[in-house]
């Protein structure tokens, strides 16, 4: 078995008396675009906060490229790229300055960072915005910049938390296609948290998360067949209604 880009085993998390995550387990393979599908409040963001160590993981095990997040957090975080649900770029700086700052936080010199930034922005189709202040970018441009920035330090795992929320259909489709391409070309594992079923292809691995529990795992096609549904939306509704 290959080393997973991300391995989550029996992870739970509570906020006081409320169980936000309960015994969550799944893998993200290198080169795959894995969708974490769930409605708002399913626990997707909590899971992201645990994987990124913004919350402390107390139960279960999380490993990135084999690096245990609790035992070797530096190695685990160094190999992870992140795109958060809301913007995390510095609005007062230019795109170039945001890249330099991000690179520095990963110990990369400005020269090395900018050499990568040019290529990454080019691939993301936003090379022309490099000297613009972030606050002047459109939502779609900012998202593409964030995705490009997340790959600056050559991660083996990219986490995207509802990264297309608020974008138009074309921007959403382009961003999803771009990440599929990057996963296939660079062997990066992508974990794509979403509640938008149309962003998931039939061959994409899918983890269905509902009220903090994993209800199903498999490709989109397998989940549809397993539920005897017509499409993924039908399968998702069948799964979530059955668990209610």
């Amino acid at each position, binding site marked *: 078995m290959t080393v997973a880009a991300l391995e989550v085993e029996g992870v739970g998390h509570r906020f006081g008396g409320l169980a936000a995550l309960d015994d969550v387990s799944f893998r993200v393979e290198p080169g795959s675009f894995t969708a974490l599908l769930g409605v708002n409040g399913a626990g997707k963001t909590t899971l992201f*906060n645990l994987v990124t160590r913004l919350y*402390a993981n107390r139960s279960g095990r999380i490993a990135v490229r084999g690096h245990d997040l609790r035992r070797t957090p530096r*190695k685990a975080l160094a190999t*992870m790229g*992140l795109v958060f649900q809301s913007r*995390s770029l510095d609005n007062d700086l230019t795109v170039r*300055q945001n890249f330099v700052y991000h690179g*520095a*936080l990963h*110990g990369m010199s400005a020269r090395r960072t900018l050499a990568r930034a040019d290529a990454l922005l080019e691939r993301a189709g936003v090379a022309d915005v490099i000297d613009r202040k972030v606050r002047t970018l459109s939502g779609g441009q900012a998202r593409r910049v964030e995705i490009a920035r997340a790959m600056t330090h050559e991660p083996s795992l990219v986490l995207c938390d509802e990264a297309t929320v608020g974008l138009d259909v074309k921007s959403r489709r382009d961003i999803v296609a771009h990440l599929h391409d990057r996963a296939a070309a660079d062997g990066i594992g992508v974990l794509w948290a979403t509640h938008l079923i149309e962003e998931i292809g039939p061959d994409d691995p899918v983890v269905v998360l509902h009220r903090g529990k994993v209800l199903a795992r498999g490709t989109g096609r397998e989940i549809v067949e397993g539920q005897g549904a017509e499409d993924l939306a039908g399968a998702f509704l069948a799964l979530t209604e059955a668990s209610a």
Partner: protein
Amino acid sequence: MTGWIVCAAGVIWRETLRFVQQRERFVASLVRPLVWLLIFAAGFRSILGVSIQPPYESYILYEVYVLPGLCAMVQLFNGMQSSLSMVYDRESGSMRTLLVSPYPRWFLLTSKLLASVTISLFQVYAFLLLAWFLDVRLPPWGYVAVLPALVLSGLLLGAIGLLISSAIRQLENFAGVMNFVIFPMFFASSALYPLWRLAESSRTLEWVALLNPFTHCVETIRFAFYLEFEPLSTAATAGALIVVLGLAILAYDPSRGLMARRRGGGRP
């Protein structure tokens, strides 16, 4: 090791860049102490006598007496401004970029602190230059000798800002900091009046001032300006720095601190 230096330099560079872009912040950092120096000190010169006391060897003008306190005030406001900036970063989401860096959190927060000190030094020396042009002058070598004292006090006041930023959930709550942190720290200290003056009016106030870390920042700076070392104040400032920075690092620890107890009410 290079990566650590690059990371710390990157954090300092980013904060400096933001400061350079915020001209109003720089102007405000100069206007505030200048108002005290030109208006308050000029008015109080005739009322408040300052007797000869270490480190002074002769009678001095009240403007000269308050200068170290005003330098510390610049650093105090800068520390709180950095705290405000941390809260803003948390609300806008850019704080997460910092917190998910692979470098340890204590290191990232200390880098933030160093950035805050760098900016405060720039502000203090700009203020001292203006004061020099206004004929409020100190011994020439004092401007060099005071640098370590300014770094120490800047670290402490910045660390207080860091600690406060971990406890504040929203920018709107920041006005309370002005009322409950900045003003009491500044007024209940030796910045504006010598401790013996405070003791004359109230022994309790004297004790409050003695326990106030800002007093020790001011005295460390005051003695350094006259090429003297004040061990008690320096030790008190350094001790307070260790405690406050330790608490701030703990507060930002995802498994133990205040950030861990939050949910929903403010992003991590």
